[in-house]
């Protein structure tokens, strides 16, 4: 086989392989959408984070505006300190409310940001003051059972 023809087929092969990688990156993966060019960190303290994981999405009004960058335990306050990387295009007011929510009934957990009405915006590495912890199913059930039991007693 002549060298030129060989080069042609190898070229075809390399182009096909690169196209497959590009397909994996853009169509299958989320390289185009979820990699924010510039981010700034915010911190939030939660009493209980439930099943929140690093890399979980941060959403505001349902739109992904950032990702959870780091989670660690604060031995002084016995709270979980969550660092969020927020897309640099978005600013949030000082009295923004951070909640840990669940996508669907048993889906993954994410952080929802409910913006408040403050004029002052949060700066990089500020702490979000108002937070709501994850709902722990066992606590919910035990509260429900407790209420039911006390209702049953008052009926008699």
């Amino acid at each position, binding site marked *: 086989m002549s060298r030129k023809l060989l080069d042609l*087929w190898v070229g075809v*092969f390399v182009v*096909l392989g690169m196209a497959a990688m590009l397909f*994996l990156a853009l169509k299958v*993966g*989320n390289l185009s959408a979820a990699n924010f060019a510039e981010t700034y960190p915010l911190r939030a303290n939660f009493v209980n984070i439930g099943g929140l*994981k690093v890399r979980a999405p941060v959403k505001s009004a349902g739109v992904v505006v950032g990702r959870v960058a780091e989670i660690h335990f604060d031995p002084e306050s016995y709270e979980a300190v969550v660092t969020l990387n927020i897309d640099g295009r978005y600013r949030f007011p000082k009295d923004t409310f951070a909640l840990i929510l669940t996508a669907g009934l048993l889906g993954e957990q994410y952080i929802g940001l409910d913006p408040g009405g403050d004029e002052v915006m949060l700066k990089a590495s500020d702490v979000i003051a108002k937070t709501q912890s994850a709902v722990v199913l066992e606590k919910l059930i035990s509260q429900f059972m407790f209420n039911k039991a006390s209702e049953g007693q008052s009926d008699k």
Partner: protein
Amino acid sequence: MAGDSRATGRIATMLGSIGHRVTDGLIRLGFATRFFLMILLGSGQSFRRLHLTIREIYFAGFQSLLIILVSGLFIGMVLGMQGYETLQRYGSADALGVLVALSLVRELGPVVAALLFASRAGSSITAEIGLMKATEQLTAMDMMAVNPIARVVAPRFWGGVISMPLLAALFSATGILGGYLIGVVFIGVDEGAFWSQMQASVDFRYDVWSGIVKSFVFGIAVSLIAVFEGYDALPTAEGVSSSIKSTVVKSALAILALDFVLTSFMFREA
């Protein structure tokens, strides 16, 4: 008394043969490491005649395309069918895209493509080099002051290393298209949900890139085993055939063991 000494004699031979095997294995391992360094040293010389490597990419990569694409398509279709069967029991058939894409990109793509590559291209590389050695072509090159490692071994090694990630990516991509074909076209999973859920949960850096790194490592392992087994073959018909066998067996073991190690490094939950 005589029986006693015979028994001790037998034990001594047994121990001796175990020791012989262990040292033999160590010597081969040491030679393989030296051989790897020799390939790296000879690479510069062989890259100066790039068409040698391009020729090997043609034989190892381009000619493996058919088997890789067809197997990828079928594996994707099977994943689509089996995944749908299980997911629809929990009412989450929309997550089919996630299941197909993650299992292909993270595991099946690199591993199955590498296994196919080892048996399709690795074995033929071993056979070629082994036969060259058996017919004393390698010795002849040495006599003509041509370095056989730079002329014969390094191009085949790099041809394999370059082809492997491309083949694995093609395998994953056709597999996902196969899953799409079964899931969306034949079964009727919602097309928008198939792609959007996939894009939401497949991360480029974490999933796709790890898969590419995996296939690159497998490419190095398989190519090194193939060229080494060929170069180290006994120069007889039996020697070459047993080297080919051991290329396939050792590559498969190396791929699966490396996959376990790499997976435990890459996908540990933080």
